[in-house]
Protein backbone atom coordinates (compact mmCIF):
# COMPACT_ATOMS: atom_id res chain seq x y z
CA UNK A 1 0.00 0.00 0.00
CA UNK A 2 1.33 3.39 -0.89
CA UNK A 3 -0.01 6.52 0.70
CA UNK A 4 2.02 8.89 -1.46
CA UNK A 5 -0.04 11.95 -2.33
CA UNK A 6 -2.84 10.85 0.05
CA UNK A 7 -3.93 13.82 2.16
CA UNK A 8 -4.83 13.06 5.78
CA UNK A 9 -6.16 15.69 8.17
CA UNK A 10 -5.93 15.08 11.92
CA UNK A 11 -8.12 17.24 14.16
CA UNK A 12 -7.27 16.75 17.82
CA UNK A 13 -6.50 19.31 20.53
CA UNK A 14 -3.72 17.11 21.92
CA UNK A 15 -0.37 17.46 20.16
CA UNK A 16 0.59 14.11 21.65
CA UNK A 17 -2.51 12.37 20.30
CA UNK A 18 -1.82 13.82 16.83
CA UNK A 19 1.79 12.61 16.98
CA UNK A 20 0.75 9.12 18.10
CA UNK A 21 -1.74 8.78 15.26
CA UNK A 22 0.82 10.09 12.74
CA UNK A 23 3.43 7.62 14.03
CA UNK A 24 1.01 4.72 13.54
CA UNK A 25 0.11 5.83 10.00
CA UNK A 26 3.78 6.43 9.13
CA UNK A 27 4.49 2.79 9.96
CA UNK A 28 2.60 1.74 6.82
CA UNK A 29 2.85 4.70 4.47
CA UNK A 30 3.92 8.25 3.93
CA UNK A 31 0.91 10.50 3.29
CA UNK A 32 0.71 14.28 3.42
CA UNK A 33 -0.45 15.30 6.89
CA UNK A 34 -2.42 18.35 7.97
CA UNK A 35 -3.05 19.07 11.62
CA UNK A 36 -5.72 21.05 13.43
CA UNK A 37 -5.95 21.74 17.15
CA UNK A 38 -9.70 22.37 17.41
CA UNK A 39 -12.96 21.89 15.54
CA UNK A 40 -12.89 25.25 13.78
CA UNK A 41 -9.35 24.74 12.48
CA UNK A 42 -10.37 21.29 11.24
CA UNK A 43 -13.21 22.81 9.20
CA UNK A 44 -10.97 25.62 7.88
CA UNK A 45 -8.17 23.28 6.79
CA UNK A 46 -10.69 20.87 5.24
CA UNK A 47 -12.07 23.64 3.04
CA UNK A 48 -8.57 24.72 2.02
CA UNK A 49 -6.94 21.34 1.40
CA UNK A 50 -9.80 18.91 0.59
CA UNK A 51 -8.08 15.94 2.29
CA UNK A 52 -8.89 12.33 1.36
CA UNK A 53 -9.47 11.31 4.97
CA UNK A 54 -10.12 13.12 8.25
CA UNK A 55 -9.48 11.79 11.74
CA UNK A 56 -11.26 13.90 14.31
CA UNK A 57 -11.64 13.96 18.09
CA UNK A 58 -15.02 14.77 19.66
CA UNK A 59 -14.14 16.74 22.79
CA UNK A 60 -12.29 19.80 21.52
CA UNK A 61 -12.19 23.49 22.40
CA UNK A 62 -13.68 26.29 20.26
CA UNK A 63 -15.84 23.88 18.26
CA UNK A 64 -16.53 20.26 19.19
CA UNK A 65 -15.96 17.38 16.79
CA UNK A 66 -19.62 16.68 16.02
CA UNK A 67 -20.31 20.30 15.07
CA UNK A 68 -17.17 20.34 12.93
CA UNK A 69 -18.28 17.14 11.16
CA UNK A 70 -21.69 18.64 10.35
CA UNK A 71 -20.04 21.73 8.88
CA UNK A 72 -17.61 19.68 6.82
CA UNK A 73 -20.42 17.44 5.51
CA UNK A 74 -22.55 20.44 4.59
CA UNK A 75 -19.57 21.75 2.60
CA UNK A 76 -18.67 18.37 1.07
CA UNK A 77 -21.20 15.57 1.48
CA UNK A 78 -18.60 12.98 0.32
CA UNK A 79 -16.09 13.87 3.03
CA UNK A 80 -14.57 10.74 4.63
CA UNK A 81 -14.46 11.31 8.38
CA UNK A 82 -13.34 8.96 11.15
CA UNK A 83 -13.90 9.77 14.82
CA UNK A 84 -11.05 9.04 17.24
CA UNK A 85 -12.34 9.50 20.76
CA UNK A 86 -12.19 8.19 24.29
CA UNK A 87 -15.95 8.58 24.70
CA UNK A 88 -17.18 5.58 22.78
CA UNK A 89 -20.70 5.45 24.17
CA UNK A 90 -23.58 4.22 22.05
CA UNK A 91 -25.14 7.69 22.11
CA UNK A 92 -21.88 9.33 21.01
CA UNK A 93 -21.53 6.83 18.20
CA UNK A 94 -25.09 7.56 17.13
CA UNK A 95 -24.50 11.32 17.19
CA UNK A 96 -21.28 10.99 15.21
CA UNK A 97 -22.87 8.82 12.55
CA UNK A 98 -25.85 11.15 12.31
CA UNK A 99 -23.41 14.04 11.89
CA UNK A 100 -21.80 12.18 8.99
CA UNK A 101 -18.82 10.19 10.32
CA UNK A 102 -18.03 6.89 8.59
CA UNK A 103 -16.03 5.16 11.34
CA UNK A 104 -15.37 5.38 15.04
CA UNK A 105 -12.11 4.49 16.80
CA UNK A 106 -12.19 4.21 20.58
CA UNK A 107 -9.06 5.52 22.32
CA UNK A 108 -6.54 4.28 23.42
CA UNK A 109 -5.36 4.06 19.85
CA UNK A 110 -5.07 0.57 18.42
CA UNK A 111 -2.67 0.28 15.48
CA UNK A 112 -4.61 -2.60 13.89
CA UNK A 113 -7.80 -0.56 13.83
CA UNK A 114 -6.03 2.38 12.20
CA UNK A 115 -4.44 0.04 9.67
CA UNK A 116 -7.82 -1.48 8.84
CA UNK A 117 -9.30 1.96 8.22
CA UNK A 118 -6.41 3.09 6.02
CA UNK A 119 -6.13 -0.22 4.12
CA UNK A 120 -9.87 -0.40 3.41
CA UNK A 121 -9.59 2.96 1.66
CA UNK A 122 -6.19 3.07 0.03
CA UNK A 123 -5.04 -0.51 -0.58
CA UNK A 124 -4.38 -1.15 -4.26
CA UNK A 125 -3.67 2.46 -4.98
Amino acid at each position, binding site marked *: MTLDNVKILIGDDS*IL*ARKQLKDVILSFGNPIFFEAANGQETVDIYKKESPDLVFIDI*VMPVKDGNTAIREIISYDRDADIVIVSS*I*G*TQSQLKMAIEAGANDFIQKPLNADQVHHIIASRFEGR
Partner: protein
Amino acid sequence: MYAQFFGNYLLTRDIVTKEQLITALQKKDSQHMKLGTLAIHAGYMTANEVDRIVILQTHLDKRFGEIAIHEGYLTESQVAELLKKQKPDFLRLGQVLVEDGILDNNQLQEAIINYQSESEFDDFIYSDETREIISHLLENFFVATERPLTRYELAYFQLLFNNLVRFIGDDFTPVAPYRAKEYPTSYCVSQGVYGKFTMRIYLDMGEKTAVEFACRYAREIFPEFDEYVQAALEDFLNLHNGLFTVNLSNDYSVELQLTPPGVETPELLTFTSETYLLPIVYPFGTFHFIIEMSAEE
Protein backbone atom coordinates in the same frame (compact mmCIF):
# COMPACT_ATOMS: atom_id res chain seq x y z
CA MET B 1 -0.68 -5.28 42.31
CA TYR B 2 -1.60 -5.25 45.97
CA ALA B 3 1.68 -3.77 47.19
CA GLN B 4 0.19 -0.31 46.76
CA PHE B 5 -2.73 -1.10 49.02
CA PHE B 6 -0.52 -2.69 51.66
CA GLY B 7 1.72 0.38 51.45
CA ASN B 8 -1.30 2.59 51.87
CA TYR B 9 -2.45 0.48 54.82
CA LEU B 10 0.92 0.95 56.55
CA LEU B 11 0.81 4.70 55.90
CA THR B 12 -2.70 5.30 57.13
CA ARG B 13 -2.01 3.33 60.32
CA ASP B 14 1.14 5.47 60.88
CA ILE B 15 3.26 2.32 60.77
CA VAL B 16 5.62 3.95 58.25
CA THR B 17 6.19 7.51 57.04
CA LYS B 18 5.68 8.56 53.44
CA GLU B 19 9.46 8.91 52.96
CA GLN B 20 10.11 5.43 54.35
CA LEU B 21 7.45 3.98 52.11
CA ILE B 22 8.73 5.67 48.96
CA THR B 23 12.26 4.43 49.65
CA ALA B 24 10.99 0.91 50.28
CA LEU B 25 8.83 0.90 47.14
CA GLN B 26 11.85 1.86 45.09
CA LYS B 27 13.90 -0.99 46.56
CA LYS B 28 11.32 -3.73 46.55
CA ASP B 29 11.73 -4.90 42.95
CA SER B 30 15.34 -5.87 43.47
CA GLN B 31 14.47 -7.60 46.72
CA HIS B 32 15.25 -11.31 47.03
CA MET B 33 12.52 -12.94 49.08
CA LYS B 34 13.63 -14.60 52.30
CA LEU B 35 12.30 -17.91 53.44
CA GLY B 36 11.60 -16.51 56.90
CA THR B 37 9.31 -13.79 55.55
CA LEU B 38 7.49 -16.34 53.40
CA ALA B 39 7.11 -18.69 56.40
CA ILE B 40 5.55 -15.90 58.46
CA HIS B 41 3.16 -15.06 55.66
CA ALA B 42 2.16 -18.70 55.22
CA GLY B 43 1.57 -18.99 58.96
CA TYR B 44 4.11 -21.81 59.29
CA MET B 45 6.36 -19.88 61.67
CA THR B 46 5.90 -17.01 64.09
CA ALA B 47 8.05 -13.90 63.91
CA ASN B 48 9.82 -14.94 67.11
CA GLU B 49 10.70 -18.33 65.65
CA VAL B 50 12.07 -16.66 62.53
CA ASP B 51 14.15 -14.28 64.64
CA ARG B 52 15.53 -17.24 66.60
CA ILE B 53 16.62 -19.01 63.41
CA VAL B 54 18.25 -15.80 62.13
CA ILE B 55 20.31 -15.66 65.34
CA LEU B 56 21.22 -19.35 65.04
CA GLN B 57 22.32 -18.67 61.45
CA THR B 58 25.02 -16.32 62.73
CA HIS B 59 26.57 -19.27 64.65
CA LEU B 60 25.91 -22.04 62.17
CA ASP B 61 27.06 -21.96 58.56
CA LYS B 62 23.75 -23.30 57.28
CA ARG B 63 20.77 -22.10 55.28
CA PHE B 64 17.66 -20.80 56.97
CA GLY B 65 15.61 -23.74 55.68
CA GLU B 66 18.01 -26.37 56.91
CA ILE B 67 18.08 -24.93 60.44
CA ALA B 68 14.30 -24.48 60.51
CA ILE B 69 13.84 -28.14 59.56
CA HIS B 70 16.41 -29.25 62.12
CA GLU B 71 14.71 -27.21 64.85
CA GLY B 72 11.34 -28.71 63.90
CA TYR B 73 9.68 -25.47 62.75
CA LEU B 74 9.29 -26.47 59.13
CA THR B 75 9.07 -29.77 57.28
CA GLU B 76 11.03 -30.40 54.11
CA SER B 77 7.86 -30.30 52.06
CA GLN B 78 6.90 -26.94 53.58
CA VAL B 79 10.29 -25.49 52.62
CA ALA B 80 9.90 -26.83 49.09
CA GLU B 81 6.40 -25.37 48.89
CA LEU B 82 7.51 -21.95 50.12
CA LEU B 83 10.35 -21.81 47.62
CA LYS B 84 8.05 -22.78 44.80
CA LYS B 85 5.14 -20.51 45.69
CA GLN B 86 4.60 -17.20 43.94
CA LYS B 87 6.02 -14.32 45.96
CA PRO B 88 3.42 -11.62 46.57
CA ASP B 89 4.59 -8.14 45.83
CA PHE B 90 3.36 -6.64 49.08
CA LEU B 91 5.50 -9.13 51.02
CA ARG B 92 8.56 -7.90 49.18
CA LEU B 93 7.66 -4.41 50.36
CA GLY B 94 7.26 -5.67 53.93
CA GLN B 95 10.64 -7.35 53.85
CA VAL B 96 12.40 -4.18 52.68
CA LEU B 97 10.86 -2.33 55.63
CA VAL B 98 12.23 -5.01 57.98
CA GLU B 99 15.68 -4.82 56.40
CA ASP B 100 15.67 -1.03 56.68
CA GLY B 101 14.94 -1.43 60.40
CA ILE B 102 11.60 0.38 60.14
CA LEU B 103 9.65 -2.69 61.23
CA ASP B 104 10.70 -5.83 63.03
CA ASN B 105 9.37 -9.25 62.08
CA ASN B 106 6.78 -9.15 64.84
CA GLN B 107 5.39 -5.85 63.59
CA LEU B 108 5.39 -7.12 60.02
CA GLN B 109 3.54 -10.27 61.08
CA GLU B 110 0.94 -8.20 62.90
CA ALA B 111 0.54 -5.80 59.98
CA ILE B 112 0.06 -8.66 57.50
CA ILE B 113 -2.55 -10.36 59.67
CA ASN B 114 -4.48 -7.15 60.29
CA TYR B 115 -4.24 -6.03 56.70
CA GLN B 116 -5.49 -9.34 55.38
CA SER B 117 -8.34 -9.61 57.84
CA GLU B 118 -9.43 -6.03 57.11
CA SER B 119 -9.18 -6.50 53.39
CA GLU B 120 -10.45 -10.10 53.39
CA PHE B 121 -8.64 -11.03 50.25
CA ASP B 122 -6.30 -13.67 51.64
CA ASP B 123 -7.79 -16.25 49.32
CA PHE B 124 -7.57 -14.07 46.23
CA ILE B 125 -4.07 -12.78 46.63
CA TYR B 126 -2.57 -15.00 43.94
CA SER B 127 -5.48 -14.72 41.57
CA ASP B 128 -6.22 -11.96 39.08
CA GLU B 129 -7.82 -8.87 40.49
CA THR B 130 -11.53 -8.66 40.05
CA ARG B 131 -13.90 -5.75 40.17
CA GLU B 132 -15.28 -7.03 43.42
CA ILE B 133 -11.96 -7.09 45.25
CA ILE B 134 -10.98 -3.62 44.13
CA SER B 135 -14.34 -2.19 45.05
CA HIS B 136 -14.09 -3.82 48.46
CA LEU B 137 -10.65 -2.32 48.97
CA LEU B 138 -12.04 1.02 47.87
CA GLU B 139 -14.84 0.93 50.40
CA ASN B 140 -12.27 0.53 53.17
CA PHE B 141 -9.96 2.96 51.51
CA PHE B 142 -12.41 5.82 51.39
CA VAL B 143 -13.00 5.99 55.12
CA ALA B 144 -11.75 9.56 54.79
CA THR B 145 -14.85 10.69 52.96
CA GLU B 146 -16.92 10.12 56.14
CA ARG B 147 -19.82 8.91 54.04
CA PRO B 148 -20.36 5.96 51.76
CA LEU B 149 -19.33 6.64 48.20
CA THR B 150 -22.13 6.78 45.67
CA ARG B 151 -22.07 4.00 43.09
CA TYR B 152 -20.85 6.48 40.49
CA GLU B 153 -17.99 7.67 42.69
CA LEU B 154 -17.09 4.07 43.43
CA ALA B 155 -17.11 3.29 39.72
CA TYR B 156 -14.96 6.37 39.10
CA PHE B 157 -12.22 5.46 41.56
CA GLN B 158 -12.31 1.80 40.64
CA LEU B 159 -11.67 2.73 37.02
CA LEU B 160 -9.02 5.28 38.02
CA PHE B 161 -6.97 2.59 39.77
CA ASN B 162 -7.47 0.23 36.86
CA ASN B 163 -6.35 2.90 34.41
CA LEU B 164 -3.30 3.81 36.47
CA VAL B 165 -2.32 0.14 36.42
CA ARG B 166 -3.09 -0.13 32.72
CA PHE B 167 -1.50 3.07 31.42
CA ILE B 168 1.13 4.13 33.99
CA GLY B 169 2.07 0.98 35.92
CA ASP B 170 1.06 -1.08 38.93
CA ASP B 171 3.86 0.14 41.20
CA PHE B 172 1.87 2.94 42.80
CA THR B 173 0.56 3.57 46.26
CA PRO B 174 -2.62 5.55 46.75
CA VAL B 175 -2.43 7.51 49.96
CA ALA B 176 -5.73 7.98 51.78
CA PRO B 177 -7.60 10.95 50.33
CA TYR B 178 -8.47 13.96 52.41
CA ARG B 179 -10.79 16.90 52.08
CA ALA B 180 -9.40 20.16 50.82
CA LYS B 181 -10.60 23.74 50.59
CA GLU B 182 -7.62 24.90 48.57
CA TYR B 183 -4.62 23.52 46.74
CA PRO B 184 -1.35 25.15 45.62
CA THR B 185 -0.63 23.99 42.07
CA SER B 186 2.58 22.86 40.36
CA TYR B 187 1.67 21.89 36.79
CA CYS B 188 -2.05 21.33 36.87
CA VAL B 189 -4.57 20.23 34.25
CA SER B 190 -8.27 19.65 34.70
CA GLN B 191 -11.38 18.39 32.99
CA GLY B 192 -15.07 18.74 33.76
CA VAL B 193 -17.65 15.96 33.65
CA TYR B 194 -21.27 17.02 33.45
CA GLY B 195 -24.72 15.59 32.92
CA LYS B 196 -26.66 13.70 35.59
CA PHE B 197 -24.02 14.96 38.03
CA THR B 198 -21.03 17.22 37.66
CA MET B 199 -17.48 16.91 38.84
CA ARG B 200 -14.16 18.52 37.96
CA ILE B 201 -11.01 16.44 38.09
CA TYR B 202 -7.58 18.00 38.41
CA LEU B 203 -4.25 16.28 37.93
CA ASP B 204 -1.25 18.08 39.39
CA MET B 205 2.44 17.25 39.53
CA GLY B 206 5.92 18.77 39.35
CA GLU B 207 7.75 19.00 36.04
CA LYS B 208 10.19 16.13 36.70
CA THR B 209 7.38 13.83 37.74
CA ALA B 210 5.38 14.91 34.68
CA VAL B 211 8.23 13.90 32.35
CA GLU B 212 8.31 10.38 33.82
CA PHE B 213 4.52 10.18 33.83
CA ALA B 214 4.44 11.11 30.14
CA CYS B 215 7.16 8.59 29.22
CA ARG B 216 5.16 5.81 30.83
CA TYR B 217 1.84 6.96 29.41
CA ALA B 218 3.04 7.40 25.82
CA ARG B 219 5.66 4.61 26.00
CA GLU B 220 8.16 7.02 24.52
CA ILE B 221 11.20 8.85 25.80
CA PHE B 222 10.68 12.54 26.51
CA PRO B 223 13.94 14.17 27.61
CA GLU B 224 12.39 17.30 29.06
CA PHE B 225 9.20 19.02 30.18
CA ASP B 226 7.86 19.99 26.74
CA GLU B 227 4.49 20.33 25.03
CA TYR B 228 4.22 16.57 24.52
CA VAL B 229 4.70 15.97 28.22
CA GLN B 230 2.09 18.59 29.02
CA ALA B 231 -0.31 17.01 26.54
CA ALA B 232 0.19 13.57 28.12
CA LEU B 233 -1.34 14.76 31.41
CA GLU B 234 -4.40 16.08 29.63
CA ASP B 235 -4.59 12.94 27.49
CA PHE B 236 -4.56 10.66 30.51
CA LEU B 237 -7.38 12.65 32.15
CA ASN B 238 -9.35 12.75 28.92
CA LEU B 239 -8.88 9.05 28.28
CA HIS B 240 -9.79 8.07 31.82
CA ASN B 241 -12.85 10.32 31.93
CA GLY B 242 -13.89 9.16 28.47
CA LEU B 243 -13.74 5.53 29.52
CA PHE B 244 -15.71 6.48 32.63
CA THR B 245 -18.50 7.92 30.50
CA VAL B 246 -18.51 4.68 28.48
CA ASN B 247 -18.80 2.57 31.64
CA LEU B 248 -21.56 4.71 33.11
CA SER B 249 -23.46 4.62 29.87
CA ASN B 250 -23.11 0.82 29.61
CA ASP B 251 -23.64 -0.07 33.27
CA TYR B 252 -26.14 2.56 34.45
CA SER B 253 -27.52 4.13 31.26
CA VAL B 254 -26.21 7.46 32.52
CA GLU B 255 -25.05 9.78 29.73
CA LEU B 256 -22.32 12.26 30.64
CA GLN B 257 -20.43 14.90 28.68
CA LEU B 258 -16.86 16.11 29.01
CA THR B 259 -15.37 19.56 28.67
CA PRO B 260 -12.04 19.79 26.81
CA PRO B 261 -9.14 19.31 29.22
CA GLY B 262 -7.09 22.42 29.93
CA VAL B 263 -4.28 23.89 32.01
CA GLU B 264 -5.08 25.50 35.36
CA THR B 265 -3.12 28.72 35.65
CA PRO B 266 -3.96 29.91 39.20
CA GLU B 267 -1.20 29.23 41.72
CA LEU B 268 -3.82 28.48 44.32
CA LEU B 269 -7.04 26.64 43.57
CA THR B 270 -9.91 27.22 45.97
CA PHE B 271 -12.90 24.94 46.19
CA THR B 272 -16.38 25.75 47.38
CA SER B 273 -17.95 22.30 47.02
CA GLU B 274 -16.90 18.96 48.49
CA THR B 275 -13.36 18.31 47.21
CA TYR B 276 -10.95 15.46 47.84
CA LEU B 277 -7.23 15.26 47.32
CA LEU B 278 -5.96 11.84 46.32
CA PRO B 279 -2.17 11.56 46.39
CA ILE B 280 -0.65 8.80 44.26
CA VAL B 281 2.91 7.76 45.04
CA TYR B 282 5.03 6.19 42.30
CA PRO B 283 8.76 5.47 42.56
CA PHE B 284 9.33 8.32 40.05
CA GLY B 285 7.34 10.86 42.03
CA THR B 286 4.09 11.80 43.68
CA PHE B 287 1.11 13.41 41.99
CA HIS B 288 -2.36 14.42 43.05
CA PHE B 289 -5.79 13.89 41.72
CA ILE B 290 -8.16 16.51 43.03
CA ILE B 291 -11.79 15.64 42.69
CA GLU B 292 -14.35 18.40 43.07
CA MET B 293 -17.79 16.89 43.53
CA SER B 294 -21.16 18.47 42.98
CA ALA B 295 -24.61 17.25 43.82
CA GLU B 296 -26.68 15.41 41.22
CA GLU B 297 -28.70 17.66 39.04
